[in-house]
């Protein structure tokens, strides 16, 4: 049965899931997936033609692109069940090629954000620049997100939701009202941005009425440059970014997750 998915914005290369539209393909998909060993992968590769492996890699790439369009993380279990299927014995090789394709062709990086449940996202290796002549529909949302991430970062990494709502209200973006550009602002911030892993919206225990706090999500940690935020703040308040010593220190400390590169030369 063709899965009905919600309308995507900024429609790009429509990449249909040929594998998902195949009906009645009863694979042994309920057997939990375990990583094959290197020798198993080798043996598996010997039995397949290069064209077959390329084809399967292409399908995996398409699947990721489709999910990434909506910024939905990909679970390994779904990937194996719906796309990789009988090629599961060479799964590591396919993933290796997929990652390489994303880096070399798309400028995207395949990152595992959940090592227990094996969940992947694609992050942008290229820095988001101002003044792009072709504006994608998601740009205004990213602007709003950037403001929220800035507030959180400047306040040390976690803020009460009320602070975020008040900040937005000052910008005439009222979570209580339907916004011309963003629609249901509260849903965008607490649902969409959270599902996309840009934000975390966490309950504060023992609060009455229930309050939440916002933190940076995993995707933001990987994609958004903290230095850029400080530079933006510096311009906004006419201050030297270094004057926020605490934040500057955090922004310049190399972390385990790589910050996006600035315009690299080729």
């Amino acid at each position, binding site marked *: 049965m*063709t*899965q*009905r*998915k919600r*309308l*995507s914005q*900024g*429609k*790009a*290369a*429509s*990449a*249909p*899931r*040929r594998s*998902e*539209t195949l009906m009645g393909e009863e694979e042994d998909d309920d057997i939990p997936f375990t990583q094959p060993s290197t020798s198993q992968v080798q043996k598996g590769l010997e039995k397949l033609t290069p064209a077959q492996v*390329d084809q399967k*890699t*292409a399908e995996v*790439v*398409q699947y990721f*692109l*489709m999910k990434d*369009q909506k910024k939905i993380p990909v679970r390994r279990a779904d990937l194996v069940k719906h796309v990789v299927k009988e090629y599961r014995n060479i799964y590591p090789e396919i993933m290796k090629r997929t990652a390489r*394709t994303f880096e*070399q*062709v*798309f*400028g*995207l990086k395949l990152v595992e954000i959940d090592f227990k449940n094996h969940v992947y996202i694609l992050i*942008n*290796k*290229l820095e988001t*620049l101002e*003044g*792009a*002549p*072709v504006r*994608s*529909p*998601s740009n205004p949302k990213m602007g709003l997100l950037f403001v929220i991430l800035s507030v959180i970062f400047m306040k040390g990494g976690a803020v009460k939701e009320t602070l975020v709502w008040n900040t937005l209200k000052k910008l005439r973006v009222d979570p209580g009202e339907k916004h011309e550009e963003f629609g249901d602002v509260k849903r965008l911030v607490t649902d969409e941005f959270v599902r996309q892993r840009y934000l975390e919206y966490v309950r504060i225990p023992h609060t009455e009425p229930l309050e939440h706090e916002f933190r940076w999500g995993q995707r933001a940690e990987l994609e958004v440059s903290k230095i850029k935020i400080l530079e933006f703040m510096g311009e906004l308040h006419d201050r030297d970014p270094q004057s926020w010593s605490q934040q500057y220190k955090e922004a310049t400390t190399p972390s385990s997750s790589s910050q996006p590169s600035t*315009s*690299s*030369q*080729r």
Partner: protein
Amino acid sequence: MSRPMGDSHRRFLQAMMAKGIINEQEARALHRHCCDAHNAHCAPDRLDEFIDVISSHLQPMFMQIRKGMSEEDGLPYYALVNMAETDVTRMSSDYADNELELFRKTMDLILGSETGSVSSTDILNSADSLQTKKLKKSETEHLLSRLVMDKWLNEKRGEYTLSTRCIIEMEPYIRTMYQDQVKLCHICHNIVFQCQICENPTCGIKIHNPCVARYFKGRAEPRCPACDDFWPHEIPEVRRLQSQSRR
């Protein structure tokens, strides 16, 4: 042997993925922007070559940046297309089975028409006879606006036509599935929908409106290039890029 991709190519590709389709002017501006961003040399007349590098690397993924002409304004457009599917199932991740069926029916109607367009009334009528789940009038209207928003169809005064993106992406499919009905423009030899037709019943050649504008430009007495009969239709103006702003 295809040239390696640089960050400028990747940035261009990412922009294409976000937009789906851009016109030539946008493509040139984007090309300049991407090259500047990565300190790469930008040769404005090498845009197609630049795009070919990207396409050659997309080929193993059955994707391509393909160039085509808009039937509306006659300008070149670049679309990121998926070549893996040979059917409308390329849209299947966003539309339900009955919605795809309606889209196919809309295409049938457009291909069967002389004008390359179909009225919303005719589409609504065909929604009644779907083999998969039926669509209500409101659902059909909502579906049509989604198809327009997703750039599969264009709508003008209640008439629906195939969008430039749709034509560029589905050309191979259309040529195959509608072999008997599909017509080619006499001037540019690409598939044609919205056009002018030679009135001579033994001739009947079709020419895209922009192709008419270009071909007959400056001619005092326009004549059919195939049968030499007088060309009775009004010759449109050639669309210029810079000056004619619609605002």
